[in-house]
């Protein structure tokens, strides 16, 4: 069963340079999320990867309706939630929960763990789970309920944030860079916890990260984002073993491996994402770019089953085009 179906989702932000709408020109708008389409099956984990500013966070926040979408459609368990009002949305929220990047900011510092999680239980009238139970589920001692967030370490705080989402037994957990502020030993603990949650409750997940190694560890499928667009989509293992889009190749290159033959090669241009060129948004950084790339924007095309890429190189006439 499809848990979530996102079609043509677009979010446009106005650049602050021109606040008055009538004076705005085309380039004063930033497409943070540009025509994104994908879906998630039950118990599937989707990874979203890309560099800072590529629109990963905006995408997932729009999906859980913390940011209002401009165009497109979000269907959650067959129900269109794109434009329903907050009152209709609230009872559905228990089925999709988001966990944020910074556990120092996402937990209220003036309240005890008991209240932080207890509020959620009260609001959604949950009667089969207690705060102590859910703390145990995420691997924290029961007596933590009387603690304040500042008394916990970063990893423990992130576990509390997971517990707050988990207490509702959601169908979908959206995890937005939840391990990027943790060191690697703590990180692996959190990732294993998520894997266990997925197995135990058949939860689906959207896992956002800029680190392909993390995505590789946790996700089944991956969406590679660049400048608001999905540039490559496929089974995580296949995408990493055989990256098609030049940007995905750069991402794969940039993960250090332990054997010490790491050699990230990349040209750098500061204006990278915000001032997008016409044509393919990646063209000015792409080592393979040819004339077509500077003129028209590539669409996401199907390469093989489940594998999609948005790159002219794989279209007819492109360097890597293979017919049939």
């Amino acid at each position, binding site marked *: 069963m499809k848990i979530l179906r996102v079609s043509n989702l677009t979010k446009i932000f106005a650049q602050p340079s021109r606040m008055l709408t009538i004076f705005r020109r085309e380039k004063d708008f930033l497409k943070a999320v540009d025509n994104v389409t994908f879906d998630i099956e039950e118990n599937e984990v989707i990874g979203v990867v890309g560099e800072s500013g590529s629109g990963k966070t905006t995408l997932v926040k729009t999906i859980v309706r913390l940011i209002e979408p401009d165009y497109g459609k979000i269907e959650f368990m067959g129900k269109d939630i794109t434009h329903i009002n907050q009152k209709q949305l609230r009872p559905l929220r228990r089925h999709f929960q988001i966990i944020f990047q910074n556990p120092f900011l996402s937990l209220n510092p003036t309240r005890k763990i008991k209240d932080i999680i207890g509020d959620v239980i009260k609001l959604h009238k949950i009667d089969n789970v207690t705060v102590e139970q859910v703390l145990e589920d995420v691997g924290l001692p029961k007596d933590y309920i009387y603690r304040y967030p500042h008394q916990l370490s970063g990893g423990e705080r992130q576990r509390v944030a997971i517990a707050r989402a988990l207490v509702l037994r959601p169908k979908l957990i959206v995890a937005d860079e939840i391990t990027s502020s943790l060191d*690697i030993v703590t990180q692996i603990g959190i990732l294993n916890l998520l894997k266990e949650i997925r197995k135990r409750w058949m939860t689906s997940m959207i896992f956002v990260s800029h680190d392909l190694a*993390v995505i590789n560890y946790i996700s089944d499928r991956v969406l590679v984002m660049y400048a608001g667009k999905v540039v490559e989509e496929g089974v995580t293992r296949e995408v990493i*073993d055989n990256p098609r889009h030049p940007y995905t190749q*750069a991402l794969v290159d940039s*993960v250090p491996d332990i054997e010490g033959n790491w050699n*990230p090669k990349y040209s750098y241009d*500061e204006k990278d994402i915000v001032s997008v060129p016409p044509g393919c948004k990646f063209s000015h950084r792409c080592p393979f770019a040819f004339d077509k790339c500077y003129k028209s924007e590539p669409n996401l095309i199907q390469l093989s089953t489940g594998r999609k890429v948005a790159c002219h190189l794989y279209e007819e006439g492109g360097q890597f085009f293979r017919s049939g």
Partner: protein
Amino acid sequence: MAALLKVQGLTISFQQNEVVKNVSFEVEQGEIFGLVGQSGAGKSMTGRAIIRLLPPTAKVSGRIFFKGHDLLSLSEKEMRKIRGNEITLIQQDPVASLNPVFKIRDQITDVIKLHLKLDDKEAINRARNLFTEVGIPNPEKVLLKYPHQLSGGLCQRVAIAIAFACEPSLVVADEPTTALDVITQGMVVNLMKRMQKQFNTSIIFITHNLALASNICSRIAVMNDGQLLEVILSKNILTGSNHPYTRTLLSSLLTLNRRADAA
């Protein structure tokens, strides 16, 4: 080669709490030396002790020899001649390590003017050259900006330029890439390696990522809970260590495990 830096029995404590316990190691001239461990292992405190930037409540004992002088016995006045000049620091959060109320130009030229005794014009020239060196596009424009107007990767480039401004002998790099995304991380690491070669600087590279350390350092010191557990050659990292904690670090490391046949 003679050791540039010799740390002997360094112990740092806050009240009754020992955060660094009897740590000793040596860093050679022109070497990149890794300090690896989890958060709270005492890596940063060790780094900050070397550049003498610990909070005033810290109690420090032991000795830190830099070019034969014990840094811990120097007066603050003498230390100031060394700090920012011969020993410099690159911090984790590039946006926070720059002063938000001054333009980039003032922040880099202050260092140059103070230590190299150059006048305004020469200092700006030197800053411009350094910016070109670290690959900042449009150095002229960036000089006139404030830190908040630049991206994280660009701020870190500025911080690196400032750290290398006076051609230091030793750079303490405290998790310089942790706040950056992977692509920017690759660029910053390449840049630091290049600068290190060019000036034959020694770098103490502090990180929690063993894979990153093994790629850029010649030797790696593994720290946990304030203690230095072992110093190991990077090329032996996979096979040469029997220490259980190093094994833990290795096993929590995530890599891509790419297959060799991948195109």
